Structure formats: C-alpha cells, structure tokens
C-alpha cells in the first residue's frame, strides 16, 4: 500500500520538483500525521526549497521517533546532510543500532556518521563495538586507524597514548596473523612513521610480510626513503643503483637517492672517493649509452651527469668549464624540447655569474640553432631550440641594465621570429599551439617589465595587441589567456578579462585555485553583477566539499584504503579553511552592500542582517586559513630572486590575511553599529587598531586604509553621541565633523587616457564605498539622535561628511 502511495512523492523528489513533493507529502500527512517516513521525505523537500529551519524541526521529530527502517533512515540522513547537521545523523543511527544490536548495517552507518562528523574518538568506539559483535578484522583496523588519527592530532604531546595503543593493537594483530593486505601494512607504517620510529618501520618492511608489499611501487619508494632516513646508505645506494641500471634510468627519485648515498659513503670513507666517483661516472655513461639506443631518448642519464657536476661543484671538485661543456651538450641534445629550459635552470645558475660569461654562453648555444633549413621537421625543432635560447637569455640577464629601447628592439625581434614560425603551423589541429607561441609570451613579459619601470600604459596596450593576435592563431593557448586576463585588469577592463576567463572552462576544484586570476582586486572595476555571479558560481566548490569529500573518506574506510585517509582529511580541511572562500564572502558582501544601499535605510537593514561569523579577523583564525590559490600556472622565465611574472602582472597587491582583517573588521563594525542589539565598541576599536598598525597596512592599499579609518572614526563619534553626558555628546559631534571626505575625493585627478587604469578605478570605488557607508552611518546617527528625543543638535549639522559624500556621488555618476 505504502509503496504505491509513496511513488509519486519519491519521483517528485528525484526529479527535483520540490514544490510538488511538498504538496504530496502534506496530503499524505493529513491522513496519516504520524507517518515518519513521509515526514523525513518532506524534510528533504523542504531543504531543497531552501527552508532549512522547517526541515531541521521536522528532522528532529523524525529522530525522536527512533526509526529503524532503512527508507526513513536514508531520507532523514540525506536531509541532515543537506542541512549540514552531520552530528544528528550520528544520533539517528546510534539509536537504531542500540535498538537492533545485531544489525551490522546500522552499526556501520553509525561509524560512518562519525567519520563524516570528524568524531575520532566516537568512531573508534563504534569500530570496536562492530569488531566485538561481528568479528570482522576490517573493523579492528578501522578502530586502529581511528586511534592513529587521534595520535596524529595529538602529535607533540608525550606520552602519545593513542599512538602507543594503536601500535600495540597493530603488533598484536600481526602476531595473530590478521595482517594480510598491503594497505594494512601501510596502516602499521603510518603509525610507526607518525611516531618517528623509522628504524622499526624499516624492520617491518624487511620482514616476510613487508617484502610481499614491495610489489607496490609506492611501498618501494617508502622503503628506500626509510633507508636514507635511517642512514642505511649502503643499502640505499645498492637499491637505487639497481633501479637505475636495470629498470628505469629516467627515475629522478632514484638518481637523487643514488647521489645522496654516494656522497655519504665518500664522506664516511674519504679514500674511496676516486673509485666511487669513477663508478658513478660509469653508471651515467652506461645508462646514457642505452638511452641513445632507445626509440625515445630519455633525459634521465644526461641530467644525472649535470646533477653530479653540480654536487662536485659545490665542493669545488670540478671546474666550471667542464660543467659548462656538459650543459651545452645537454642543450644541443634536448634543446628541441620545451622543458629543456626548466631542466637547465638549476645548473646554469651554478656556473655562470658574470655578464661576459653569460653572453658568451648564450652566443655558444645560439650557434647550435639551425633555422636555415628546408626540412620542415628540423626547422620546427630548431624553433623550439631558439625559444629556449631566448628563455635562458631572459633568465640569466638579471642585471636590469636593459634600456627601454633595447627592450622594444627585443620585442620586435621576438614578434618577427613568431611570424616566421607561423607558416609552419598551418596544418596544426585547432587544439594545438603554434610552434612560436612562446616568443609572444616572452615579448609580453618584456613589455610588462618596461611598463612597471616607466608606468607608460602604451606598453600594456602593445602586449595586448600581440597576445590577442597570437590567440587568434592558437585559440586554446591558456598561457596567452592568463596574461590577457591580467593585462586587461591592469587597464581596468573587467569585462574583457571576464570574456577571456570564461573560455577557460574553469570548474570544480579550479574554482578554488584559479578564480583569483580574474577576481582578485576586481571589485574595484565596478562590474558588480558580473563579478558577483562569478563569485557565487565559484562558491559551489565549498558546498561540494561539504557534501562529497566526507563520502569519499567513508569510501576509503569501506575499501580499507588506509594510506589515503589522512590525505583525504587534509584535502577536506584545506578546502574548508580556504582563504579564497573568505575572499569570495567578503567581496560578495561588499557588492551586496553597494547594491542594496540605494536608500540608506536599506543599507542599515543589510548590515544589521549580515552574518558576521564568516568574516574572520583575529590573528589565530587568519593564520589557519589555507591558501590553495595556484600561482604557478604562468610560464615564467625570471629567476627566483626577481619579481615573478605572476606578481608583475597583477593590478595590485595580492589579497592576503591582513587585507581580510581590515575588510572583515569594516563589515563587522558596520554590522554592529547597524544592528541595535549589538554594541559597536570593541570591534570598532579593533578596526582602529588595525588601520593604524604599520605591520597590517603595509599589505593593503592606502584606499583600503582610508575606508577603514573613515568607518572607525564615524562609529567612534556615534558611540560618543550615545553617551548620556552632554560633554561626551559634544565630543562625538566634534569627531564626526572631523570625518571629512573632501580631501580624499579631491585627490583624484580627472580621468584621461593616460590615467585610466586599475589604480584609478580603485580610488573611485574607495570613494564610492566611503560615501555609501557614510550615508548608512548618517542614517544610524539620525536614529541615534531621534532616540535621545531632546538632543540639542540638528542631525544635519553632524553629517557634513555625508553631504560632501552625496555631492561626490553625483559627480561620480556623471563620470
């Protein structure tokens, strides 16, 4: 009976017709008001219609009924999950498991609910109970894993009882023959390594069962790492030598281990030096020889030669000339590969220091490039080689002595080289890049640098023209796109930047790591609707993390993949604590504040209703934010000690914890002063302290500081006005009169072709925000004064700032 009646309800929920589902549920509940399953389904429909509070009440009713049927439990679990009340699912299943102690599934759900809710102790107890009742070893390992996680969380405290207990249980399980799978050994390893017991971990892998795990490539890597960490250099040397000579000479991990072990052995026995080095050179030669015979030539042995040189060079045991010869030989062999530049970076730095050496090196490798050839294939490869020469030249030329003219000449040269390469790419697929694209990237970098030195916007426009032209030929080249986005932001054009960004198909996890390229500081460019839409869409990743990642942690337990659990937890928490999420929240609030404040009373209402909890400002919270933004995507040929292209190309300072601090405090101060239930004092003085603290304001612009000061001062004045004593009120009036925007606003020059830039718009936005916040605060002043009935002063007298603001606003609108 129930099935037939419920089917339409289930279908409505599945198909996302929440309204219809609600109607259906209400109809059934009218006849059978105690139908718990229907209540749970109704709760689900309620969450999905955005009525979380009602849903939460209904879920509580379901929970109180202590359901033990699967459909009800499932529906209630889903509803709780979507409200975000994971802890309630624990109670739901805990009750069910108690009522039916022999139901293994309920007990499993109980455990999983605690995993989702990050209750480590609770999950340990549930796992132990599961193990006791159902005798499956899997549950024993769940309990041990739960203990290991508690041990990790308590790292640094001694004694660490959780780790001790976990280790004891594990060693007992091993004795009893319960440990069979590689992942169970991994669990044992993470307990030992977590306590720093590397010798014991090595002994475990040396045992019979440990040796069986060596089938797994990652366990082999851990094995070698343990050898080096416990100074078992002879063993590490042998293992890595064997991998390199017999299996894979392209494995950099093994080469690094090999050299580490080699030099440790030499240090221990200096007399063996000659022999050992000969041996290493012989290994390099023999692996080089087989690499030369293979169909695809691997770089491993050739780069190993450079690595050995580098290590010898650090002890002055090799002359620069020999090493330089090896570098040139490497370039000649692999210069046709785009990664050659990255490969050579650490090595050229070690041998070249003065400008003469550098220019003769560049000349030498340039002579290895042969562009005058009729053979298309050879020519294409030489174009890449030529690009690598330019990149190395750019990388090594750190003197900065280049004049503007030199730079422009270089750009012309690169653009010509790019155009010469174009005809060769006629038959390339649309998805591929033209062979000479990196010439244009490099030319843009040079123009960007000159712009930073001269502040002449013409250089940015020049770069934009080159990049747009080249993008038309390589429509998917994201290197062009990243630069274009940044350059458009510098000239203040958010919609052009947005146009490019929207072709990059940024989604899911990339919302957290890449959106900043477009949105950082873009609030100043005024395209509020477009910006807010971008931010709101990007925020979906955090909801996804809340819903999806806990399920995946649960899956890792179910598949007993113990080696991944800590990693998933770290992943979850990095997204949970993402700095980008806070940045999104702040900009969304700022946009909404401006958009709702067309009349001051709505602004007051907006700030009164603002939830301040998502705007952290105290140093402890700020230091816990995780910066997952990916800054490493742009090609960059500048050396590490010089300002990176990512930095050069950003319109302003990177948003950072101190920026968050000021913005959060502004929003919170506004909230406190607008919400009659709050006292504004403490937060306002925090704001004042922040905007006068040198260590804080060095990380933000002067406009950010001005807005913060302005808000803090006005709120300060308001607080004096609220005082019962006349002298205090007088002081408040004086304070408010001193909050003057006119100087700030008149500092702005008129907009012309040469001043138009992000900086100009940033100043403008700061003025607009001052005016809007000022008018909201003046509304608060009015209300404060009318509350005090017989105040002597007229509100208009006290709000100079605001009237000035309004004039300015009229002026801005005409702009």
């Amino acid at each position, binding site marked *: 009976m129930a099935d037939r009646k419920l089917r339409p309800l289930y279908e409505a929920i599945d198909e996302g017709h929440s309204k219809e589902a609600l109607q259906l549920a209400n109809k059934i509940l009218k006849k059978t008001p105690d139908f718990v399953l229907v209540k749970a389904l109704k709760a689900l429909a309620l969450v999905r219609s955005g009525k979380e509070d009602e849903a939460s009440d209904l879920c509580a009713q379901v929970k109180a009924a202590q359901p033990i049927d699967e459909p009800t439990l499932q529906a209630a679990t889903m509803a709780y999950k979507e409200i975000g009340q994971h802890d309630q699912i624990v109670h739901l299943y805990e009750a069910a498991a108690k009522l039916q102690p022999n139901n293994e599934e309920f007990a499993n759900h109980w455990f999983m609910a605690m995993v989702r809710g990050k209750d480590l102790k609770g999950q340990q107890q549930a796992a132990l109970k599961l193990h006791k009742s159902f005798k499956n070893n899997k549950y024993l390992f769940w309990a041990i894993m739960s203990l290991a996680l508690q041990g990790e969380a308590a790292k640094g405290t001694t004694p660490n009882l959780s780790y001790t207990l976990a280790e004891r249980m594990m060693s007992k399980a091993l004795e009893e023959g319960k440990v069979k799978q*590689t992942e169970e050994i991994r669990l044992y390893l993470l307990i030992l390594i977590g306590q720093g017991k590397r010798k014991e971990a090595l002994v475990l892998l040396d045992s019979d069962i440990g040796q069986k795990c060596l*089938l*797994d*490539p*990652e366990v082999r*890597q851990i094995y070698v790492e343990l050898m080096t960490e416990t100074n078992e250099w002879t063993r590490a040397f042998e293992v890595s030598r064997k991998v390199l000579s017999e299996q*894979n000479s*392209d*494995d*950099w*991990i093994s080469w690094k281990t090999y050299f580490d072990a080699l030099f440790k052995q030499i240090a221990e026995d200096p007399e063996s030096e000659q022999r050992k080095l000969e041996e290493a050179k012989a290994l390099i030669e023999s692996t080089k020889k087989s690499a030369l015979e293979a169909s*695809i030539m*691997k*770089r*491993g042995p*050739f*780069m190993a030669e450079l690595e050995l040189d580098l290590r010898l060079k650090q002890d002055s045991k090799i002359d620069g000339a020999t090493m330089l010869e090896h570098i040139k030989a490497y370039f000649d062999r692999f210069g046709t*590969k*785009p*990664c050659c530049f*990255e*490969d050579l*970076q*650490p090595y050229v730095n070690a041998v070249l220091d003065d400008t003469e050496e550098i220019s003769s090196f560049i000349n030498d490798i340039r002579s290895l490039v042969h562009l005058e050839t009729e053979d298309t294939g050879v020519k294409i490869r030489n174009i890449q080689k030529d690009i690598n020469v330019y990149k190395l030249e750019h990388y090594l030329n750190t003197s900065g002595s280049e004049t503007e003219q030199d730079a422009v000449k270089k750009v012309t040269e690169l653009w010509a080289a790019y155009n010469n390469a174009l005809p060769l790419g006629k038959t390339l697929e649309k*998805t591929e*890049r033209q062979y000479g694209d990196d010439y244009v990237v490099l030319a843009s970098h040079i123009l960007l640098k000159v712009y930073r030195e001269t502040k002449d916007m013409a250089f940015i426009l020049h770069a934009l023209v080159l990049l747009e032209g080249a993008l038309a030929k390589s429509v*998917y080249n*994201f290197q062009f796109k990243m630069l274009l986005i940044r350059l458009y932001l510098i000239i203040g054009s958010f919609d052009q930047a947005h146009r490019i960004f929207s072709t*990059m*198909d940024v*989604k*899911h*996890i*990339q919302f*957290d*790591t*890449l959106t900043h390229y477009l949105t950082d500081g873009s609030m100043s460019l005024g395209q509020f609707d477009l910006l807010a839409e971008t931010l709101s869409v990007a925020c979906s*990743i955090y909801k*996804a*993390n809340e819903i*999806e*990642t806990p*399920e*995946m942690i649960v*899956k*890792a337990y*179910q*598949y007993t*993949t113990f*080696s*991944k659990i800590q*990693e*998933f937890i*770290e*992943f979850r928490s*990095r997204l949970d604590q993402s700095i980008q999420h806070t940045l999104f929240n702040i900009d969304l609030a700022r946009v909404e504040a401006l958009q709702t404040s067309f009349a001051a009373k709505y602004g007051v209402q907006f700030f009164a209703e603002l939830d301040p909890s998502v705007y952290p400002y105290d140093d402890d919270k700020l230091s816990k934010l995780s910066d*997952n933004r*990916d800054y*490493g*995507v742009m090609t960059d040929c500048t050396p590490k000690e010089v300002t990176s292209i990512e930095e050069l190309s950003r319109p302003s300072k990177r948003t950072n914890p101190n920026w968050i601090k000021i913005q959060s405090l502004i929003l919170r101060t506004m909230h406190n002063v607008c919400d009659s239930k709050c006292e504004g004092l403490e937060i306002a003085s925090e704001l004042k302290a922040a905007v006068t603290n040198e260590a804080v304001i060095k990380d933000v612009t002067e406009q950010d500081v001005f807005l913060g000061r302005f808000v803090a001062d006005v709120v300060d004045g308001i607080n004096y006005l609220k005082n019962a004593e006349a002298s205090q009120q007088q002081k408040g009036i004086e304070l408010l009169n001193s909050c003057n925007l006119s100087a700030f606003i008149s500092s702005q020059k008129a907009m012309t072709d040469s001043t138009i830039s992000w900086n100009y718009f940033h100043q403008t936005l700061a003025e607009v925000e001052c005016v809007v916040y000022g008018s909201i605060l003046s509304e608060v002043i009015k209300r404060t004064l009318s509350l005090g009935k017989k105040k002597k002063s007229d509100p208009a007298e006290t709000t100079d700032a605001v009237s000035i603001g309004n004039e300015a606003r009229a002026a801005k609108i005409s702009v």
Partner: protein
Amino acid sequence: MSQLRRFKATDLFSFNNVNLDVLTETYNISFYLQYLARWPDLFSVQTTAQGNVMGYVMGKAEGTGKNWHGHVTAITVGPEYRRLGLADGMMDLLEEVSEKTYDAWFVDLYVRVSNAVAIGMYRKFGYSVYRRVKNYYAGTIDEDGYDMRKPLKRDKKRETIRENGENVLVNPEDLDSWR
C-alpha cells in the same frame, strides 16, 4: 626524466598546468577521490625534478572471469612535457600494477577513432583494436571509439585480443554483455 609517484588528493590543487589544456577534462571531487579510495595504486602522477605536475594516469580494475582487467580511464600530459616518452612510463606502471597486484588478464582503453596520433602511440605500446564502439563519444558531434587492449602475462594463449577488431562494431549499450 621525472618522478613518478602515486597521485595524492592534494595534487588536485596544483594540476592546473595539465588540466587547463583543452583536451583534459576537469571532473568533480568525487570522481578523483573515488578512484583514489578504491584503486590508489592505479592513479599516478609524474612531476619534474622541481615538483611541477607533468602528467598523470588514472585507472581502475574491473570485470569478471576472463574479463577481469585493468582499464585506463584517463592519461594526460601537459603541453610543455609532450614527446618525452612520459605516457610510456605511466602506461608501464599501470600495466605492471594491473598484472602483479590485480592479476588482470589485460589492460584496455578507449580512444577516438579520429585520434590517429594516440592510436599509433598505443599500438607502439602493444595495444590492438578489439572492437569499435558506435558513438562512444557523445557530444555536439558524435564519434565512434576504439576499444584497444593489451594482453598481460596471465593471458598465455592471448584469448582476450583478436585481429581486425576495427571491423567489429558494437553499440555502447552492448558493452557490458561483451565483458
């Protein structure tokens, strides 16, 4: 020359140099984490000496009986790191694990019939076409896919592959019955 290791969940924060390429799809969190939770040893990443992500391979083990096999779900290499033989090393590892850890009969993968470069590369790695799947790649323009296979040691008689698989046309909905 590179470092080949297991893919970590936190690599998702820094794989953009590969994933911004137009031919590499970015999926939701569950997609990657599900593979990591279930087949952690079939999901590997290759990085440069300096730690930049060059490419990665993700795979799974599935099927029953003689159809128990390793499957390459995705293999991708960033634009700067192509033509270095990286795919070769990643496929080797996936095949090794499929053979030794999972005791699979073969490894298979799907490729667009138009992608001659990739097909040629897989042939060089020892794969041959087993069948052609009609409209396997659905999209604005539908395209057939080749199911390519390489037998592993367990398949001594090479029963899991066949000649002229290019001519064996199946519909996507029939794939499971063939497994």
